[in-house]
């Protein structure tokens, strides 16, 4: 990084770039969360810090924390191991349907867990394919409500994080070094271990830390698949806040979770993730058609990925056309017409429209705020940069219910009486998308060769022109990619939205949730049809993102 001796003006610019992100994240994240936690710790009008230790050492906290930790570690390891072959495939192999394969992998990651959780339940249940395989070998398998189901689902949801991030890094590794090692007599494994693996380490650490973050704070998966005997800290926070109003315990658990998340992010930084180095990128030219034994590995990787990601999604699609009179589009036809003329059940088609509009607003907001943050981070050096970068990730480590309840008590007075304002939904979704925008744009900004800027300046271009001719041109593709990814995240966001969705304007995930909360075949059928539409939209957006940007989008 070339930030050591910037002129004073540069420092002012850095500060200015941070004003908007700090204000935005302050209003829509930090202040609400801090207010709610403080309310919890100040029960009875004064700080009751003594109770912190009491909660932390109670047996129930210890057992919840222990389960949260081990399932997160296990899920992370399992995801990395399961997705590594797919990363190799993405980084090295050319095959038909490649772009669809890469785009489809990320669909589970951005779909709401209510949707996929239900599909997963069907796959793991007694009538599902897993039990069918079990009965062939004479074992009675019912994985519902087990920790095993939770770990499998975590692998399913986060597979793409590892496959895509590490895959992109793999593509950037020059294969000639490994080839040289092999000519010098190293076997395949040794050559990989000594040459390629060290170069993948930053991407591996980055992806693993994200997977850890998501599985440590897992909510929907644990609730739907884990059953009532299993709870993560996040599930407990939700229960304590919404059902028991025990804000004291909830606040301590929120702090505990935050501490764990901060520790994970610090580990990630220390794992030697140095961005801006080793920028020599090989790119798509390293892709080749599989030869010999590779063919077998590629085929089995594609098959297992298709099974893991495809079966639950296919179950969903199947249920959306599995009508009483045989396969058909009855549920889809019903989507346009069955507004029941009631206030909350708007025609589901309208929910699609709401989702598209809110998503557009959220993605634009995330791009602007995240873009400014990335510019600021790019200009920042040393420890400050690492800390600022990590703190942008914190919204991913705080329970949606904490943020939602925080909104209620922090944003209740003019000029910020936003509790029922229509801006709240896109703003809350943008908070979640911003980390991904930053992580897409920052490496791209770092990769703009300083020499190009200097050359332009020497040729007499004023700073604004340098920005326009050099930076803006090189950043256009990553920026569009980040916009699309933020859009996909917003389409599927449920946790925060459900707290603040307005009665007359539900998004698709909220409409699915509402349809699933009443009995009747038509309700389930429409929920499945809406899920399929959401899934298709998401996949389409990701396909566009991959076409326009590079595979590093959302690059963690």
């Amino acid at each position, binding site marked *: 990084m070339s930030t050591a001796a910037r002129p004073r003006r540069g420092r002012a610019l850095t500060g200015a770039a941070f004003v908007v992100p700090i204000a935005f994240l302050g209003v829509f994240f930090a202040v609400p969360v801090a207010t709610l936690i403080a309310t919890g710790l100040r029960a009875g009008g004064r700080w009751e810090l003594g109770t912190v230790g009491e909660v932390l050492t109670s047996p129930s906290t210890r057992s919840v924390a222990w389960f949260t930790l081990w399932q997160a570690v296990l899920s992370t390891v399992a995801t990395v191991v399961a997705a590594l072959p797919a990363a190799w495939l993405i980084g090295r192999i050319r095959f038909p349907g490649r772009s669809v394969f890469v785009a489809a992998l990320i669909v589970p990651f951005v779909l709401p867990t209510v949707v996929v959780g239900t599909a997963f339940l069907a796959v793991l249940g007694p009538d599902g394919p897993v039990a069918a395989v079990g009965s062939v070998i004479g074992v009675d398998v019912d994985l519902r409500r087990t920790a095993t189901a939770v770990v499998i689902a975590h692998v399913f949801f986060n597979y793409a994080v590892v496959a895509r991030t590490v895959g992109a890094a793999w593509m950037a590794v020059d294969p000639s070094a490994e080839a040289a090692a092999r000519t010098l007599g190293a076997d395949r494994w040794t050559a990989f271990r000594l040459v390629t693996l060290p170069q993948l380490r930053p991407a591996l650490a980055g992806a693993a830390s994200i997977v850890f973050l998501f599985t440590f704070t897992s909510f929907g998966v644990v609730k739907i698949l884990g059953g009532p005997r299993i709870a993560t800290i996040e599930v407990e926070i939700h229960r304590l806040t919404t059902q028991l109003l025990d804000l004291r315990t909830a606040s301590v658990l929120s702090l505990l979770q935050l501490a764990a998340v901060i520790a994970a992010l610090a580990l990630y930084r220390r794992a030697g993730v140095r961005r801006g180095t080793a920028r020599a990128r090989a790119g798509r030219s390293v892709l080749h058609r599989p030869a010999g034994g590779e063919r077998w590995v590629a085929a089995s990787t594609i098959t297992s990925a298709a099974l893991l990601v495809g079966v639950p999604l296919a179950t969903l699609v199947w249920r959306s056309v599995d009508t009483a009179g045989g396969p058909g589009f009855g549920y889809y036809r019903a989507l346009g017409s069955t507004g029941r003329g009631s*206030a909350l059940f708007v025609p589901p088609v309208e929910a699609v429209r709401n989702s598209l509009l809110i998503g557009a607003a959220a993605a634009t907001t995330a791009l602007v705020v995240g873009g400014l943050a990335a510019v600021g981070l790019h200009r920042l050096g040393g420890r400050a940069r690492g800390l600022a970068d990590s703190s942008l990730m914190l919204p991913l480590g705080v329970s949606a219910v904490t943020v939602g309840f925080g909104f209620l008590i922090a944003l209740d007075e003019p000029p910020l009486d936003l509790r029922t304002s229509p801006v709240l939904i896109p703003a809350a979704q943008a908070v979640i998308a911003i980390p991904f925008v930053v992580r897409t744009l920052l490496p791209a900004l770092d990769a703009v060769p300083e020499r190009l800027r200097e050359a332009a300046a020497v040729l007499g271009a004023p700073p604004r022109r340098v920005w326009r001719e050099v930076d803006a041109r090189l950043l256009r593709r990553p920026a569009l990619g980040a916009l699309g990814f933020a859009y996909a995240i917003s389409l599927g966001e449920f946790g925060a939205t459900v707290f603040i969705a307005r009665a007359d304007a539900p998004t698709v995930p909220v409409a699915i949730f509402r349809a699933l909360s009443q009995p009747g075949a038509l309700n389930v059928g429409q929920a499945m049809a809406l899920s399929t539409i959401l899934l298709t939209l998401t996949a389409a957006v990701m396909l566009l*993102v991959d076409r326009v940007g590079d595979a590093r989008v959302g690059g963690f």
Partner: protein
Amino acid sequence: MNRTRRPLIALLAAALVATACGDDDDATPEADGGGTDGATVTLLTHDSFDVSDEVLDAFTEETGITVELLPSGDAGSMLNQAILTKGSPQGDVLFGVDSTFLSRALDEDLFLAYESPALEGVDESLVLDPEHRVTPIDTGDVCLNYDKAGLADAGLEPPEDLADLADPAYDGTLVVENPATSSPGLAYLLATVAEFGEDGWQDHWRALRANDVEVAAGWEEAYYGSFSGAAGSPGDRPIVVSYASSPPAEVIFAEEPLDEAPTGVVEGSCYRQIEFAGILSGTEEEAAAQQLVDFLLSPTFQEDIPLNMFVYPVTDVDLPAEFVEHGAQPEDPYLLDADVVAANRDAWIEEWTEIVLR
């Protein structure tokens, strides 16, 4: 390159359009100090609330008051949000606090007293607060539902009461919701307390555990995930804790017209939940809020309740045909005293968790 970039530019354009027309619904009329004509009241509800458009429109036409709805999660979550924002409420009227949470709401002094003249037509046993800080609006019965075909396949008769389920014949047939996280789950636990007594319910649940009772986190998971009687469900349990109105809902939302509901209700297993509305203290529209409470008890709204919320009205109005034909209206449902529930709820849930889950 230009070719591939176009779709994302379209996306960006869509984004701009959206931000431009994002706030097209801010045109709510301002309240004028004295009268209620032109006032806007916000009704804070749980997610299961719903009402027909024309019913709300009728209210506005009659009174000049506009109603805004604000669904806020399940009943517990909604109440806790109201408690957190006490004094600076998000709405003017709260609908949907039920008999199991009533004490918490009253202890927190959330509501202003108001005795609606429309209470005349309501059975006195439903008026649980003599100070009228809350007004009963509807009742719902949490009951065992059974899958008619599923039980017949297993060669079983539907159970007649709660005690039947402890019979080994019903091994592996029941799915319930966790009372710690689900309102029907809690109601069912309370039904067993009412039936077997404060010292007897524990043994019944031990027997249910021996009979492999399944516990789901919430109603959706139990009904759509584990119960075999729900349309399209992957479940294999023929008996579930649901509502007296679930069989009519199965008929109303069936894909093709049904003569008979696929599920039935065990009438001897029902626990009564009463849902109340109250005027939130801190409201600036008290007079308009009172008119809204009156309206919630009017025949127009009461008749609209069953098909929107799948619970029963508290006044004497006609029920939809599906409810008459396929629904159950248990004669003598269980109902525990609200104070007893408030005093014991957390301890019972804790004890239940020990017995059934650990």
